[in-house]
């Protein structure tokens, strides 16, 4: 039976970025993540899709421990990640790792690949056999051994990401968060990295939280997909179902506007829905359903009431007053 490795319950992360008014001093809140729940099963890839302002990166950063949740809980292997005093359990540092979006800034330009990959090994293991273990890690990500002595600037974008992956694997994690790992890379290199990640997943029975804005990529990577908009989840479903049968107008809108390369793919896209207007900033979240100003199906109730997550098919939930099959 596959267990739930990561369980996120009603997670909220708000940032206070200033104050409104002189007398009232009301804090300006950015509701980056505003109440989301999902679970990632062992060995599975859970996909989180969304555009800018959706909060997907904030979710990643909170799960990995960069931020403390404002409200809600995150549990790992059934146990809350936060112990006494809301302090994150330190054993999680090894178990949960993250690969960042920008390979250029995730590696220290003043340290060699050997140092970068060896550092977590030294922190969490002994100094014996360091060289061997570093070489093993490099081999795992298909990088040649002589890259050990190079500096990050001498590597291409894809290779830098491979080093970042090797570094993440150094602590033997069971859960990896991949925050747009290939967005900055060319398509042929992206293919290499994605296939590497899938192979590593099979080999080490890893669970992935995969974040991207590229829906076509998500189709080929995730087993379950959730789509976020302004801090909330609009729709969650198994991948095939999500792409075949989207209910939420935002999902349908995004799917209808992705650029594809073949006619067969064109057939699979839902009917074209043009997006109206700009994406609002998470400082000014619209009332009711946050998507209503841009939604072609918006009715009165949408601007007043926040829709609840409703199961429309087994395993497929949608948060929309006007949801219907695309």
């Amino acid at each position, binding site marked *: 039976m596959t267990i739930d490795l990561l369980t996120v319950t009603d997670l909220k992360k708000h940032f206070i970025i200033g104050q409104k008014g002189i007398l009232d001093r009301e804090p300006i809140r950015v509701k980056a993540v505003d109440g989301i729940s999902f679970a990632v099963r062992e060995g599975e890839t859970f996909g989180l899709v969304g555009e800018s302002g959706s909060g997907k990166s904030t979710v990643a950063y909170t799960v990995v421990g960069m931020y403390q949740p404002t409200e809600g809980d995150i549990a790992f292997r059934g146990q809350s990640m936060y112990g006494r005093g809301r302090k994150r359990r330190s054993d999680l540092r090894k178990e949960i790792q993250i690969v960042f979006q920008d390979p250029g800034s995730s590696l220290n330009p003043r340290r060699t690949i050997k140092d970068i990959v060896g550092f977590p090994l030294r922190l969490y293991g002994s100094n014996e056999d360091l060289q061997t273990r570093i070489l093993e890690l490099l081999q795992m990500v298909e990088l040649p051994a002589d890259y050990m002595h190079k500096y990050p600037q001498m590597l291409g974008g894809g290779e830098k990401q491979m080093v970042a992956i090797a570094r993440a694997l150094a602590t033997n994690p069971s859960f990896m968060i991949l925050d747009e790992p290939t967005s900055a890379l060319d398509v042929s290199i992206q293919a290499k990295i994605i*296939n590497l990640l899938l192979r590593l997943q099979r080999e080490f029975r890893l669970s992935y939280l995969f974040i991207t*804005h590229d829906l*076509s990529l998500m189709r080929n990577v995730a087993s379950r997909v959730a789509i976020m908009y302004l801090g909330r989840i609009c729709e969650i479903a198994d991948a095939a179902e999500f792409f075949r049968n989207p209910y939420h107008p935002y999902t349908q809108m*995004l799917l209808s506007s992705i650029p594809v*390369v073949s006619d067969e793919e064109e057939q699979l*896209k839902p009917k074209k829905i043009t*997006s109206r207007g700009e994406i609002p900033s998470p400082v000014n979240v619209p009332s009711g359903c946050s998507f209503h100003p841009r939604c072609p199906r918006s009715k009165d109730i949408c601007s007043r009431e926040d829709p609840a997550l409703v199961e429309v098919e087994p395993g497929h939930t949608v948060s929309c007053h006007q949801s219907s099959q695309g």
Partner: protein
Amino acid sequence: MENDLLLNIKDLRVNFDVFGGTLKVLDGVNFTVSSGEKVGLVGETGCGKTTTMKAVLRVLPMPPARITGGEILFKGRDILQMTSRELGQVRGEGMAMVFQDPTAALNPVFTIGEQMDAAVKYSAAGDKRLSGKEIRKRAVEALKEVALPDPERLLKNYPFQLSGGMRQRVCIAMAVAGDRELIIADEPGTSLDVSIQDQILRLLRGLTDKLNTSIVLITHTLGVVRELADRVYVMYAGNMVEVAPTKELFSRALHPYTVGLMAAVPKLTGGGIANGIPGRIPDYLNPPVGCRFHPRCDQAMEVCRLEKPRFYRVSEDHDVACFLHAGEETGR
């Protein structure tokens, strides 16, 4: 026939002098754009597409870059031989560039109005000594063309007050405001969200259709050119390796590099991603002899290692620079 071409790059060669030697980046680039045509230029990082466009605009940093051969003909005249005065005219009147990052392309300390004014003034329209009012009018018209709401008020805004999508539209407005004939768009919308990028691309297509402007669309995303371009060039390591009308390219890609690229794109149909193209882009200090792609090509033949293939015309407007298809060449 050749004289109808708006832009005609012939056998362009550009080198860069760096530590360790000379990078032979562009190795005989051939590229044409006709009046009113939408041409896509697809290539991955390091293939030289940006260098090519910078050469066209003559904004390559001249040391370390050196143009060692070829011609760039704009409306029949060689840009590389022009004086800076003539060049200023061509740049202002004939060509405009829309950059990848709209935030970086707009000066944060000037209002949109001031920047639009400059765009109009230094253009073909500006040559007719327009009054301030006239310039303003054209600016507002351009902003309307790009579907920006409330253009008069927008002119008073500063770039930071606009969203990314709006800034990109302003950049496009600046490009069309001056009645220019050629717009070079470098990865438009890449830094923007998919829904906004979609809007921008449709805007570009609509605009260029309406104003009969030619557009060169540079990108590394194949899906984008499929939506927007009439004809697509594929570039690899300083050479054009294939060119065809869009439909033809996507249904019948011939060059092994193009084929590899198409396979590597994740498909909405699912089924996993093909494993990319083995190897790395060549070292420009010592580029491979013969076809620059041969070290990574699984169908490389003996001749590929020795000689460099030229364009072979395999069907209507479809050229491939590959010995595998040399035999399919139809009458020239």
